[in-house]
């Protein structure tokens, strides 16, 4: 299990390799990458800055991964979340999960993302033409976490 909160970008290819390398018991690798989108809540977005709660962020992510491991039989899990100033199309978050079969890996990756969006102390501040604004919490994200 690897959890990292970092300013630096990550390489999806390298992360995928680390999940799959010498891991012949797992037949499934599922990864998700979240990017900075150019539009949100009706406004054009030029970029964003991610603030977090150092210390608690890592603990919260670790806890979410442990919950996923209790629910599904998983092999390796990687969660990377970036902080600081990001531009359009930059990578924000990476979740990678391996399992013997695809079903558990798909579900666990989605579970981790849904819980991360509700429980991990990160906050996005967007840059728009009208100035900077804090992103409002999305009720859809709350509903997504409730289904598990």
């Amino acid at each position, binding site marked *: 299990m690897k959890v990292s909160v970092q300013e630096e970008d990550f390489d999806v290819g390298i992360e995928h390799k680390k999940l799959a390398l010498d891991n012949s018991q797992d037949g499934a690798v599922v990864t998700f990458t979240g990017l900075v989108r150019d539009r949100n809540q009706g406004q054009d977005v030029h970029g964003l800055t991610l603030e977090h709660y150092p210390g*608690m962020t890592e603990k919260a992510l670790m806890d979410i991964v442990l919950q996923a491991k209790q629910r599904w039989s998983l092999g390796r899990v990687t969660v990377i979340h970036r902080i600081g100033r990001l531009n359009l199309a930059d990578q*924000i978050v990476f979740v990678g999960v391996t399992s013997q079969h695809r079903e558990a890996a798909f579900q666990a990756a989605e579970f981790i993302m849904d819980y*991360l969006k509700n429980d991990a102390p990160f*906050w996005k501040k967007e840059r728009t033409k009208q100035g900077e604004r804090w992103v409002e919490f999305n009720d859809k994200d709350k509903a997504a976490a409730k289904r598990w």
Partner: protein
Amino acid sequence: MIKVLFFAQLKERLNCGELRLDLDKSLSVNSLKTHLKAQGDIWQECLEDGRVLVAVNQTMANADTIINREDEVAFFPPVTGG
């Protein structure tokens, strides 16, 4: 001494990221909020907001959670990562 942290909108609106308080006895999150709200209108307004979340020692907590000396308490808005 307890450490009280504020993040994101709260930090900006209160113009305060961190403060220290001397406690002579343990108190609940709710009592701490009442104490902080007395610091002025903006404190009252920000901490009154029902959406504000609280963590004690980096674990999500609630109004009844007890805070002891040397604890770290954090107030913040709903999270928007991912």
